[in-house]
């Protein structure tokens, strides 16, 4: 395949960026992108557990992602940490590397690689809809686009955020004597939900499970305002009636939630689109809200970028490949090891 964006030059992308058992490996630059096991050099797209892992020797990422990794891993965040702000470039063994906003969570980046006239973009996780907690996805025309596929089935079409926030606020009005507890992941979903609630005019303090506190502090340090937050653990049972509590998904179905007065169990996730999944988890108010691209965003982005080749990873590869072929696009699955169900 010929490069079209830098120089009229040559080598096949797959000869210098290879899916390996450890993750995507860039041979001339001698680094891995989001390696599944500790690597000598790692470029990290964002702080979620299936992308950022502890104990890499050298880590390159946005300042926000590095701060998130330090918050999560402490000293194990990496031997040396190198910050690269959005748009800035570094040269690694003849490969030019840039990090460009992916619109997924704070600090999330697409990795743009240019080598001998070919441009490859690794999306990491991304979404296309606006998010008040991070800059929007910037489309980068490219020869090869490596896309995520978490919601790579045409049943996943996320509704507008305002609609889901509206349903939560409506339930708070309808059941004013009950506590509403929303299951959210610590990085991204928690803070976006808070920011969206504030935009919708919800000014009351929100009670936060202990496991969410430090990540909220990281966001606020980077200038994302989340409004008044209180620790849920210190609150008296009676004080939580009519209140909103955010907690990690594991806590809402477990012993922890017993302290809450007659809770409405909510959960904010793209998986809530499927009723059976929501019912199985005992969710009473499923909020369909995701930090990942939905089917329309995934397929729209593929078409928009016009890459010669699309590599699909992290999710439902087969359906996206099928859709690409129906549209006359060339796509293949990477079947990378080492990622589990996305923190979604």
């Amino acid at each position, binding site marked *: 395949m010929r490069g079209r964006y830098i120089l009229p030059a040559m080598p096949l992308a797959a000869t210098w960026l290879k899916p390996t058992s450890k993750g995507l490996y860039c041979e001339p630059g001698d680094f891995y992108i989001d390696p599944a096991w500790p690597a000598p050099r790692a470029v990290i797209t964002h702080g979620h557990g299936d992308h950022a892992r502890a104990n890499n020797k050298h880590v390159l990422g946005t300042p926000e992602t590095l701060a998130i990794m330090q918050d999560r891993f402490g000293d194990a965040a990496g031997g040396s940490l190198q910050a690269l702000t959005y748009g800035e470039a570094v040269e690694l063994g003849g490969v030019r590397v840039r990090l460009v906003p992916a619109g997924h969570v704070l600090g999330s980046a697409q990795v743009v690689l240019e080598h001998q006239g070919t441009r490859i973009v690794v999306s990491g996780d991304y979404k296309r809809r606006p998010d008040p907690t991070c800059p929007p996805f910037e489309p980068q025309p490219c020869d090869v686009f490596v896309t995520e596929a978490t919601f790579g089935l045409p*049943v*996943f079409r996320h509704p507008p955020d305002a609609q889901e926030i509206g349903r939560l606020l409506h339930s708070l009005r309808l059941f004013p004597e009950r506590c509403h507890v929303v299951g959210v992941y610590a990085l991204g979903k928690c803070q976006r939900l808070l920011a969206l609630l504030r935009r919708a005019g919800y000014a009351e303090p929100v009670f936060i499970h202990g496991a969410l506190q430090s990540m909220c502090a990281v966001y606020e340090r980077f200038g994302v305002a989340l409004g008044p937050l209180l620790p849920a653990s210190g609150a008296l049972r009676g004080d939580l009636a009519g209140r909103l509590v955010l907690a990690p998904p594991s806590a809402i179905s477990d012993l922890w939630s*017993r302290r809450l007065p007659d809770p409405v169990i909510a959960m904010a996730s793209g998986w809530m689109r*499927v*009723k059976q999944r929501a019912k*199985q988890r005992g969710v*009473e108010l499923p909020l369909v809200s995701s930090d990942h691209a939905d089917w329309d965003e995934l397929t729209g982005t593929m078409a928009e970028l016009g890459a010669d080749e699309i590599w699909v990873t992290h999710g439902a590869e087969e359906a996206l490949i099928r859709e690409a072929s129906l549209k006359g696009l060339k796509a293949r699955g990477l079947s990378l090891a080492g990622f589990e169900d996305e923190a979604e």
Partner: protein
Amino acid sequence: MNGFAALLDALLFTPARLGKLRLMSEYFAATPDPERGWALAALTGELAFAEVKPAQIRDLVLSRVDAELFGWSYDFVGDLAETVSLIWPARPGANQVPALSEIIAELAAATRASAAARLERWLDALDPTGRWALLKLVTGGLRVGVSARLAKTALAERAQMPLDEIEALWHGLAPPYAELFAWLEGRGPRPEIAGKPTFHPLMLAQALEEGDLDALNAAAYRAEWKWDGIRVQLVARGGEMRLYSRSGDDISAAFPDILAAMAGEVVLDGELLVLRDGEVMSFNDLQQRLNRKIPSAKMLQDYPAWVRLYDLLEEEGADLRPLPFDERRRRLERWYAAAPRRRMDVSPLIRFAHWDELRALRDGARARGIEGLMLKRGDAPYLPGRPKGPWFKWKRGALTVDTVLMYAQRGHGKRSSFYSDYTFGAWRGGALVPVGKAYSGFTDAELKRLDRWVRDNTVERYGPVREVAPGLVLEIAFDSVHRSTRHKSGLAMRFPRVHRIRWDKPAAEADTVEALERLVT
């Protein structure tokens, strides 16, 4: 349609009765006529139209979506209506969003084939929740955990009116119930239902507690058997006949044999049973009939229905409910004797002088078809609901069996963080066979301890269910046990509940399936 769809969606996920009532109340308050009336008809199962078949929906979606992509999606979602509602390619602004009343009006006039053709237009205009509700509606699969009675309760609570008032009118009304809403909101008169074969809310008995008898004067009470069927009401008015269940559901179509035996102008209260050669069959036999909306000729022959009469509420247009029980009973016997009656008889009174005589009868009441005794004050009028004092039910003692806890499932609402739903088993050979499920019979403190035990003894997890090691004996109380082809053990219990938790008893000493079989009635 969007409002109705959002209501159905919320009802589906809301486990608690109180939450469901509030959702419905809010909907009825916020939605205009006739839209809300059609929604009420849908929730109470009063709609009738040619249902669209799943195959038609599948054809429709495959004309718009790649078969391969649809197949993977269906595998993932697992429900046809939901898959189609989510995968349907939107055409924003294609059509105006249809109202529920429009959809129902068009469906009522449509054949099965023309209904499917209209579907495509509606699917284009609705959002995913709207499409899901529409598909559930047109395929007749509207199951969101709301009974007709609960929907009417929402109306009653909103209007601060007794539910019985609505039940009494219900069968004289038709969708979209504009006059009912007007009356409930104080904007119109009570709807006129005279001469229509409507339901009369039943009088129910309180359970007799140990010690209650000491305070009661035996001479003031009459006793009769409590038959093990279902309470029904027979209504014959203006040449129309109806058979109603205890909660006011019209079950006439399922019992044409009873309907054919009715005549005159009466409202009767009785127990629906299956009788063969004059002998009452088990509740299980009655269940065969109750399972069929329309029975086959063979069902009618194999499971002949019968009504054993308890009371006469109306005769030749005269309301007898204010009369004392003794007087109603005299008129019932007179009415019965006046003409040959088929498929019904009068439940006999049991003569007694002292409570001890009845106690002996009740303890021996293990004969088939008898659930216990009823005590009724001779001077009491027929009062809808469950008034305190005039009627008591005195059930025969429960049976018990020692079982072993096998699986536990998380509960709902307040119990959602507790493993509160238990599947228990009995021994057969060296293995446990599940014989029933219980959700009640323990205190909050016991629930906490059970939950802890489940978490500590889990051997496998399946979603919200945990399999536990066989180590805890639950003594289960139940009213009776029957043969069943639907259960692996071949047995089904009625009203099982946890009687005692035998923390002390080794699992190996629990009962066998064989022991349970000996209690089958």
